[in-house]
């Protein structure tokens, strides 16, 4: 196995060089998070009920949300690639092709089971807690434990 890090879900690209770790820089991510959190609540993406409806084909709501997000995403990626627009720290935006491995199947199925149980994927967990359902902190801790156990078992799991 090569030492080159390709898993950008876990680690930021090394290409950017020395990262800006100042509070001022990180505050921007906080602001983007705030917008994300407000959208999560107002679009009811963090609603356990909406997730149940989605998996029972009882409403169009979540399909509309995810579908329109993908359409906006496709247009955004196309514009970023076409215009060569730079990131806020001046570095070029690069897209890493995803490599297929069996984890996308096994892990995907396991995540799907958990998604229908908790009504949340990882990001919305934080918005659920913020919206006042503080018991979701237990779900979050359990999810962190899940990522830790994955890290521990990684070499033994089929990929």
């Amino acid at each position, binding site marked *: 196995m090569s030492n080159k890090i390709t898993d950008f879900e876990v680690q930021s690209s090394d290409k950017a060089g020395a990262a800006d770790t100042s509070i001022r820089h990180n505050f921007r991510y906080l602001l983007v998070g705030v917008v994300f959190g407000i959208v999560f609540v107002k679009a009811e993406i963090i609603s356990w*009920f909406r997730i149940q409806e989605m*998996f029972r084909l009882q409403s169009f709501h979540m399909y509309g949300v995810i579908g329109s997000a993908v359409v906006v*995403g496709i247009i955004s990626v196309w514009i970023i690639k076409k215009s060569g627009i730079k990131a806020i720290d001046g570095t070029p935006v690069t897209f890493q092709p995803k490599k297929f491995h069996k984890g996308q199947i096994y892990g*995907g199925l396991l*995540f799907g089971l958990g998604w229908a149980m908790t009504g949340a994927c990882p990001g919305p967990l*934080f918005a659920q807690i913020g919206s006042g359902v503080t018991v979701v902190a237990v779900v979050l*801790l359990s999810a962190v434990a899940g990522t830790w156990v994955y890290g521990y078992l990684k070499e033994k799991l089929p990929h």
Partner: protein
Amino acid sequence: MRPAFRQTSRFFATTGKKEIWNLFFVAGILVGGFIAARWLSDGGPVLIAPALASELQSYNITDTRHLLPREIFSWEHLLTLRSFILLVVGGFLVGFGTRYAGGCTSGHAIMGLSNLQWPSLVATVCFMIGGFVMANVLLPFIMRL
């Protein structure tokens, strides 16, 4: 050092200063959730599909005042078997599965599909299969516990 251990330790060696933006981002999501629920909501109940409402009623879930049913998601119900399984086992599956799949709804379904990555389509289809199986096959048993 054994290779397996080296791999494992590299997996865990990711929490440098460089990754601290992640924590700012998720803290922002938490604050955003608070702002929206506190000041940008009319406080009305979640209007849910009648078929779902009647199914949930058979599990004694009728409270739709919040985005999550309080009969499952509350501290007082946490130690009931049903809530414990949904929150603790469900949370574990979300964390474990997301890492194993190399992404979640954002990373694969939205970002991956936007970038036309076929492995992300595979992952997204598997997310949906897992969700359909849980909601329609397994959840009816868990909800009756």
